[in-house]
């Protein structure tokens, strides 16, 4: 069994309540941080831990915190991004539902480190039950003296607010989230300035994912160095992975970073293999925005070595043969799944969710969706495939926020790795409506590539 830091007590009855949470060692981190450490020392521990943002981009959390501007007499804010809406990602919801105090405790520790006296948890609007759960947890924590004025007699004051989201995926993008939190239309802001300089209400702000914030609890309890011992290389600690698709046991798992992808899919400790005895065709390793990989490249690097669940290993090979850890939304596709259909489905999502501010994303996402729809339903042309690549290229890198990239990458990668299947939809317009292309060569061992581009 690998180590569990966030979900260790997840199965203890009543862990969602303050009493049981405290019996299991909860709120030790608050006591330790507020009573024995200075805010800068907390930041230092998080830096030492090597924790990287769990919201998708993987930016080192300690470093992000140290960039926060600290002008005299200006409020600073911590905002927790709980807008989780990426297709395939449902780890934050799980954590907030079952062990809400882990997030509240992390919020107190992190707010203390940043010198924030009012912090916000922006929860996806559809997650009404979770909003209620968090509100109840906040009330409990406040009654126990962990929130409010003069927390634990240390003189530190903190109010925590839960804000229901505006009902759009784009409100998960940190600057759109801040706009929405301010009560405006959730359009991403043009950067610079970054939130660390001018964020919520123009004040210095840190936006962190639910899991990143919850991870500060074990970091403070055990020390940053202990945390950094878990994992592999620059991918330290544990990560929540929400596994879905054609798996025997889909669900949310806490893994130590560095776990081989093969073990994650097939071992009984995790997903238990592909459901119904079928074979793996492809994976989307980190939520719908990351490049899709065929089975062979999902399990192995281009040089034949095993691929690991870590920021670096998943990115190995760049866009040619690699993908990204993203937000940890792991989707497995079996041999009966249609990649064209899936790509269309993802495109439909991005088309629907584009905020519409910048032309390439607003118009391009719709174009991609329409062409993919036509291909999927047997009305496509051979030239459509290159058209898709071209339109995706026009969006990528030419937008205000990364949603444009997120819309372009799944299309580009699907065509890169599954071109045969797209062509088959054109050549067999009738047959493709009733049967699937199948596994083809997508699980065959890849020939060793002489020159392998390494990830960043």
């Amino acid at each position: 069994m690998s180590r569990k830091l966030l979900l260790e007590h997840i199965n203890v009855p009543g862990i969602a309540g303050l009493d049981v949470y405290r019996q299991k060692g909860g709120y030790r981190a608050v006591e330790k941080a507020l009573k024995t450490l200075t805010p800068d020392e907390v930041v230092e521990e998080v830096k030492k831990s090597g924790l990287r943002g769990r919201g998708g981009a993987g930016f080192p959390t300690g470093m992000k915190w140290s960039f926060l501007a600290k002008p005299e007499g200006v409020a600073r804010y911590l905002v927790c991004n709980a807008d989780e809406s990426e297709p395939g990602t449902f780890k934050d919801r799980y954590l907030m539902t079952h062990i809400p105090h882990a997030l509240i405790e992390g919020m107190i520790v992190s707010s203390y480190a940043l010198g924030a006296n009012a912090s916000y948890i922006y929860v996806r609007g559809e997650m009404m039950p979770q909003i209620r759960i968090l509100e109840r947890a906040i009330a409990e924590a406040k009654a126990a003296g962990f929130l409010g004025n003069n927390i634990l007699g240390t003189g530190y004051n903190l109010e925590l607010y839960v804000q229901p989201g505006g009902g759009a995926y784009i409100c998960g993008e940190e600057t759109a989230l801040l706009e929405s939190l301010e009560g405006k239309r959730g359009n991403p802001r043009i950067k610079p300035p970054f939130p660390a300089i001018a964020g919520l209400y123009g004040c210095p702000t840190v936006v962190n994912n639910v899991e990143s914030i919850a991870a500060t609890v074990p970091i403070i309890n055990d020390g940053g160095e202990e945390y950094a011992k878990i994992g592999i290389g620059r991918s330290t600690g544990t990560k929540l992975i929400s596994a879905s698709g054609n798996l025997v046991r889909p669900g949310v798992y806490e893994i130590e970073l560095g776990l081989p992808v093969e073990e994650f899919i097939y071992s009984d400790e995790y997903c238990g293999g592909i459901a119904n005895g079928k074979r793996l065709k492809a994976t989307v390793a980190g939520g719908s925005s990351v490049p899709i990989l065929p089975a062979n490249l999902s399990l192995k690097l281009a040089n034949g070595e095993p691929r690991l669940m870590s920021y670096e290993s998943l990115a190995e090979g760049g866009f040619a043969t690699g993908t990204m850890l993203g937000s940890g939304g792991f989707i497995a596709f079996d041999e009966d799944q249609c990649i064209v259909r899936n790509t269309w489905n993802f495109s439909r999502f991005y088309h629907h969710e584009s905020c519409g501010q910048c032309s390439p994303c607003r118009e391009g996402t719709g174009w991609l969706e329409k062409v993919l729809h036509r291909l999927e339903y047997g009305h496509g042309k051979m030239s459509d495939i290159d058209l898709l690549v071209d339109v995706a290229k026009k969006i990528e890198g030419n937008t205000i926020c990364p949603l444009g990239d997120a819309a372009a990458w799944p299309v580009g990668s699907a065509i890169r790795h599954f071109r045969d299947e797209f062509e088959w939809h054109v050549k067999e317009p009738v047959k493709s409506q009733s049967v699937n292309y199948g596994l083809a060569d997508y699980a065959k061992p890849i020939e060793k590539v002489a020159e392998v581009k390494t990830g960043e």
Partner: protein
Amino acid sequence: MSDNKVKVTIDGITVEVENGTTILNAARQIGGDIVPPAMCYYSKLKGSGGKCRTCIVKVSKGSEKDPRPMPKLVASCRTTVMDGMEVQNITSPEVLEARAGVVEILLINHPLDCPVCDQAGECDLQDLGYEHGLQKTRYEFERRTFERIDIGDKIQLHMNRCILCYRCVYTADQLTDGRVHGVLNRGDHSEISTYIEQAIDNDFSGNVIDVCPVGALTDRTFRFKNRVWFTKPVDAHRDCPTCSGKVTLWYKGPDVLRVTARKDQFGEVEEFICNTCRFETKNTSDWTIIEPTKISDTSVIAANHYETLRPLPVIKTNEQLREANKKELEKTIKY
């Protein structure tokens, strides 16, 4: 070089500008062909820019201190210059290709109804399409359509033509009291609208017509009266209690068909004008005429102003006459 000045080189031309200037504004200080086209940025509107992506350029050298090139093309209207920065606009095939891509994308849902659009002849999108666009479209789907909306009795909104540059939204926000004009919905079904089609009713609302780069917001008092290239623009002035009273009158014969704000060489209004000047003061006697508006000779609006643009056929065939009329003949060459 003083402390708050920086040097930037755009398409090989170096210019010294204030620290904090954007690449686009630095290019405007140089002027000419190297100025990137801007469909959403408007220097008079705070927060504008960054959206249309037509102004993209390549930064081939970040600065003197950090000479690394920027990894992606950047929106020149929202990227500030650094000392020693080197920028490529029309000298970079990559930029031109990407810009053509943006133009293509701006046109996929556009109705292409220039023949019946009042903006034709003074439309930034038409100019861009002409310069960068493809002859054919690769878009084979039904185009997005909306119903026309009358925003009050003076302004009409034709959403089909809108490129969602947000200029009118900023204008309504920053120039007029009470926010009534904004964006509804999202993505490619976003639409500019007023809350429940409420009339925009205040002294400066008419300016949304002038800032609109396309024919989405048009003047109902001018609608279908004439093609702009058949009208003659004349700068005029009156003592107006509400605004500066500096306008351009658009004449057809003796009649003033429309009144607009004066526009500079980058197509931006010099000073916003009030609705009384724009919609209700259309007699020559209301105005002090200053001079004919200067129009670039490449503009279709200039075409109608010079008799000499239609030389007698004999001039073209007679060598001597041709030589004598060389300068005038050059004007007849369309670019």
